[in-house]
């Protein structure tokens, strides 16, 4: 209590100095609220925390576009987008629980520190009740932890590391995006079909947490189909020139190169690997191949024609032909003039899912929202598991999807895509090879790659 009196005295002194201009301080107005940032007026504020500077700025921009679109649709403006196809009909197009949706934005800079600072300012200053967005796992995990402590809901954007819903999972955090394990599980059968079961893989992996979980997952999956792992090499995150890591690949006896890289790393390592002529070579009597486990449209564009024929996985793609995707692509394309990326889709879906959960719960209280998102006992068809419980929905672009209550991870079909050989337009860089059904990428919550975490209990703050 000592500090308290010091600051009070300081305050009075300060007040005396500043004097006349200030209104008389009203003593200790603590607003009674049941949870952090309880919306009391006619509006509710969402916080969109996306990278606006740094290497992922373009991805962040696309997320922001989708989030703005989602807000419009929630408020009943525009064509309604995926609200029309969403299986839950709790949302009326009149905001959330009758409150108009407004939003604030922040810049994560793709640094966990900066992301937490901007999320904090949205929570403390602007009264944001939910944080959404981001394009890296480090940021997602850092902000998720913050939201848990602050008592707001975190709806993750693009985050692919197993840890987000594994060892770092939190009760207030939810992930719609798929993860490294699912990438591996979805890719393996396709790789086996395309390149055979007798292959020798060489892995280049970005030397940080996401890279490691990605490598662990894909190594396990490819060894599961009979591939041999020749070597796994870690590359510094800051590298822009991968030549010294690519050069030894050809002489290692490997006939497949797996690039566990994302973003700028991926663009450069793939471009440089192609320049080394790897894809023109025949090793062990087989055509040499390159695999990129995690694709994104923007990075595919950056790598240009080097991605032709290269296999990888995605959470969603605008070329899907279900009703939800069509509605979303129409709505987004009309507004911005080009198709949305998969990070845009995941952010859009997350905003809608949050709003829907609030509407179904009838309350903004994070604990009520968590309960609504955990659903009840609905389960994903085709999976027999005790953990197959949660909130089942459809019509948001990925087909039937389960928000699993055990770890707040979405389970849905995963796309395996390939760089298109003859694109007709500049957006047409990838083609869908396979929709791997959710049952095939299913794992138990206690899978060793996800072990060690604890959801804890929901925190309403205040």
């Amino acid at each position, binding site marked *: 209590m000592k500090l308290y009196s010091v600051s009070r005295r300081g305050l009075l002194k300060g007040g005396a100095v500043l004097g006349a201009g200030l209104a008389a301080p009203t003593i200790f107005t603590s607003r009674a609220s049941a949870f952090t940032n309880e919306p009391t007026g006619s509006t509710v504020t969402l916080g969109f925390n996306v990278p606006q500077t*740094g*290497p*992922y*700025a*373009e991805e962040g*921009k696309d997320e922001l576009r989708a989030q703005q679109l989602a807000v419009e649709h929630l408020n009943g403006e525009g064509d309604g987008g995926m609200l029309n196809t969403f299986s839950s009909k709790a949302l009326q197009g009149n905001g959330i629980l009758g409150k108009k949706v407004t939003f604030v934005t922040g810049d994560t800079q793709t640094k966990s520190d900066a992301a937490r600072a901007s999320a904090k300012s949205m929570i403390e200053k602007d009264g944001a009740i939910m944080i959404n967005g981001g394009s890296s796992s480090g940021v997602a995990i850092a902000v998720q932890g913050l939201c848990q402590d602050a008592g707001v809901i975190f709806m993750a954007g693009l985050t692919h590391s197993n840890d987000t819903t594994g060892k770092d999972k939190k009760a207030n955090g939810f992930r719609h995006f798929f993860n490294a394990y699912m990438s591996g599980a979805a890719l393996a059968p396709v790789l086996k079909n395309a390149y055979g079961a007798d292959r020798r893989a060489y892995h280049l992996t970005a*030397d940080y947490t996401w890279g490691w979980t990605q490598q662990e997952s894909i190594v396990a999956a490819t060894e599961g189909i009979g591939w041999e792992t020749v*070597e796994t*090499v*870690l*590359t*510094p995150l*800051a590298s*822009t*020139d991968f*030549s*010294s*890591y690519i*050069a*030894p690949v*050809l*002489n290692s006896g490997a006939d497949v190169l797996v690039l566990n890289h994302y973003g*700028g790393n991926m*663009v*450069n390592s793939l*471009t*440089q690997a192609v*320049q*080394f*002529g790897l894809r*023109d*070579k025949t*090793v062990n009597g087989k055509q040499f191949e390159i695999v990129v486990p995690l694709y994104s449209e*923007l*990075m595919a*564009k*950056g*790598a*240009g*024609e*080097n991605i032709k024929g290269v296999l990888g996985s995605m959470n969603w793609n*605008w*070329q899907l032909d279900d009703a939800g995707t069509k509605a979303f*692509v*129409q709505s987004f*394309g*009309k507004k911005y003039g080009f*198709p949305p990326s998969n990070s845009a889709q995941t952010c859009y879906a997350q905003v809608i899912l949050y709003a829907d959960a609030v509407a179904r719960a009838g309350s903004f209280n994070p604990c009520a929202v968590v309960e609504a998102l955990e659903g009840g006992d609905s389960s994903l068809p085709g999976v027999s598991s005790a953990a197959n419980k949660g909130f089942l929905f459809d019509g948001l672009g990925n087909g039937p999807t389960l928000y699993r209550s055990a770890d707040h991870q979405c389970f849905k079909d995963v796309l395996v895509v390939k760089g298109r050989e003859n694109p*007709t*337009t500049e*957006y047409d860089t990838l083609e869908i090879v396979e929709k791997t059904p959710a049952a095939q990428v299913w794992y138990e919550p206690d899978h060793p790659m996800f072990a060690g975490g604890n959801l804890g209990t929901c925190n309403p703050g205040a």
Partner: protein
Amino acid sequence: MDAIILQLLNGLDKGSAYALIALGLSLIFGTLGVVNFAHGALFMIGAFCAVTLNKLFSLSTVTIDPTKKDFLGNPLQVKTPYLESWFGDFGAGLMDWSVPLSILFSIPIMLAIGFVMERGLIKHFYKRPHADQILVTFGLAIVLQEIVKAFYGANPISTPAPDLLKGSLDFGIILGFDPNAVIYPAWRFVYFLFAAVIIGGVFAFLQFTTFGMVVRAGMADRETVGLLGINIDRRFTIMFGLAAAVAGMAGVMYAPINSPNYHMGMDFLVLSFVVVVVGGMGSLTGAVAAGFLLGILESFASMNEVKSFFQSIMLPSIDQIIIYLVAVIILLTRPRGLMGRKGVMED
């Protein structure tokens, strides 16, 4: 053995990029005594010269093809580049060779940027403390990269080499190894040759022309040269332009290796300072030598055998720190880097 030759090639190639950037930086240090934090931005602008020319070449007429649909279900807009419709195959060839052609395009642009920068801004900072120079050039670097970002976005932009130079060369056969033992990308080989020519050219220019002689004299003792009635200022402006052009050309040629993005200059900035300082302040030879040395050491450090050796002596991930570790060792054993001159930037 083949692995060592490969990494040597890699090292020379990495080194030539470092050396080119460091050369320009060192020219500005040496001649003008200015710490130029915007040098990385000049490299980046060079790379974007290649992107720009590529875009200019592919300016297109738009025709509507009603038989096909775009993603919204509207009739597809088909783009045909003007160059192709005007010149046919020659136009397509021009587009293919846009990166090498960008060198010609970039020289006047970079010279102009260099002149404007020196006359408009840097000139006023000759007498100011180095800290002020850092602040103003860092501010300029941010402004430049944000302008590029506003025009081209933050995403890397694929800027391919000409088809002819896209593939790889098999050096192994020449040297008597098995086929496929020493495969090296053709474009990287071109980059190395290009760097050698530029570096040689700059040195020849400074060594064998009267202009170069005066500049070298000015580097050694600016005041005395001024007292002799020689207008050293104008020559220094030209040197700044030259340094900018060298950085720009290094950037142009680097575009196919590293898809240009707006912050690539910052990625190189710190590294190029380390190179210059390891080389020694005020020594161009030192900067070039340090560039190649660090490039080669970095390549060798990334070999699996080397990594596991250092792992076994409790130095894991040697490739993460090699550049800085070498910098520390060199600066501690040689007080002024490899070939630094006494009294330059030591206070």
